[in-house]
């Protein structure tokens, strides 16, 4: 029978290979990690907006007026160009709106994006979408192995449970060989600015029908919605239902870290709810938790519109024409953006030119 280990030399070789792979995150940290921007260019282009995130964080230098941070929901839910145009008109000067996101949800990922940005650029207002039920489990972000590197978040991860820290280390072991490739062969595709812009918009989903059905153009003018009704007013606001499935300790930890980051950089912070297809007919905005308390910023508002209000003038049979799955297609993106923009402009005016959030 062919032996699994046929000599001492063979056993030592196998030990060295496995031990090296298991300790590669620490070894790389000792040797010196590649520049932080390589993390973003190392994220495969198929996974969305990593290259655009890299440009926004590391290449652009000017301060931004509003920074949106979130998952793919925010990419397909908020039309940055429209808001930029409306805010410019309101303020009488050119404004800059930026967005950072990666596919899939996770507050660890959103913390990382916000932190990397604020370490390099100034934001006058940060707006974030919070996890929905699409975030399953309580473990590191699906792409964490792409952007979590050993030694980079020491103070951020020290207080996590042992189980969570092992999960993070597991992701780092999984991603370390790719991080090693980042030393040798940086991704040059991100130098194609058109490709970066296309990836950033995820525009390929703009004219896709619901779950592969035919795309049906629909009216994109929202109903008149009272401004104040789009802001949360405490945990007992009748427009909201904050009694959803709570986040686990891992993501609650990152929620608190996000709040701490906002305090550290003294940046006004707010949240936005992007309606999903499953909210059809709901008269309240479903939230998993009362987020201002979870992030530790009690005065931070949530901007949202209940699905039943947003689609008040839309036939129930046509609402699916505004989605391609849980995400908006261009029908929904434009309808929602036009509806929520008055609240965004009001928020910016209050937070940046008026009283701070905290």
């Amino acid at each position, binding site marked *: 029978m*062919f*032996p699994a*280990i*046929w*000599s*001492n030399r*063979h*056993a*030592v070789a*196998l*030990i060295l290979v*496995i*031990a090296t*792979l*298991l300790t590669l995150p620490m070894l790389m940290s000792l040797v010196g990690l590649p520049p932080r921007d390589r993390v973003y260019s190392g994220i*495969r282009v*198929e*996974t969305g907006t990593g290259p655009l995130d890299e440009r926004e964080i590391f290449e652009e230098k000017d301060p931004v007026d509003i920074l949106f941070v979130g998952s793919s929901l925010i990419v397909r839910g908020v039309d940055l160009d429209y808001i930029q145009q409306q805010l410019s008109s309101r303020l009488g000067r050119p404004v800059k709106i930026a967005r950072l996101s990666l596919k*899939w949800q996770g507050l660890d990922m959103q913390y990382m994006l916000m932190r990397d940005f604020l370490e390099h650029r100034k934001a006058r207002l940060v707006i974030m979408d919070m996890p929905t039920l699409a975030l399953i*489990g309580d*473990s*590191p*972000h*699906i*792409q*964490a*192995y792409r952007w979590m590197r050993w030694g980079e978040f020491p103070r951020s991860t020290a207080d996590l449970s042992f*189980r969570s820290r*092992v*999960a993070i*280390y*597991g*992701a780092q*072991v*999984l991603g370390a*060989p*790719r991080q090693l*490739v980042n030393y040798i062969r940086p991704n040059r595709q991100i130098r194609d600015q058109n490709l970066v812009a296309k990836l950033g918009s995820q525009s390929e989903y703009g004219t896709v029908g619901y779950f592969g059905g035919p795309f049906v153009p629909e009216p994109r003018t929202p109903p008149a919605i009272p401004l104040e009704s789009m802001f949360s007013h405490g945990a007992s606001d009748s427009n909201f239902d904050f009694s959803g499935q709570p986040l686990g300790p891992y993501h609650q930890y990152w929620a608190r870290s996000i709040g701490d980051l906002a305090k550290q950089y003294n940046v006004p912070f707010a949240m936005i709810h992007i309606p999903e297809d499953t909210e059809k007919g709901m008269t309240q905005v479903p939230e998993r938790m009362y987020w201002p308390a979870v992030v530790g910023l009690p005065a931070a508002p949530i901007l949202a519109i209940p699905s039943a209000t947003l689609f008040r003038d839309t036939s129930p049979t046509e609402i699916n024409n505004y989605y391609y799955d849980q995400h908006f297609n261009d029908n929904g993106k434009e309808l929602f953006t036009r509806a929520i923009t008055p609240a965004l402009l009001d928020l910016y005016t209050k937070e940046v030119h008026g009283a701070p959030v905290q």
Partner: protein
Amino acid sequence: MALPSSKPNPVLVGVLFALCFAAITLTLFITPESLSVNLVYQAF
């Protein structure tokens, strides 16, 4: 072809099995979707 065959040192074999056990255990902690996504279309 005949392979060189000398019985490996039991200590080395023990270390190797311990490392394999550690690797398998660590895998159990990794976000499952990270592994499946990695396998399906984000392999290196």
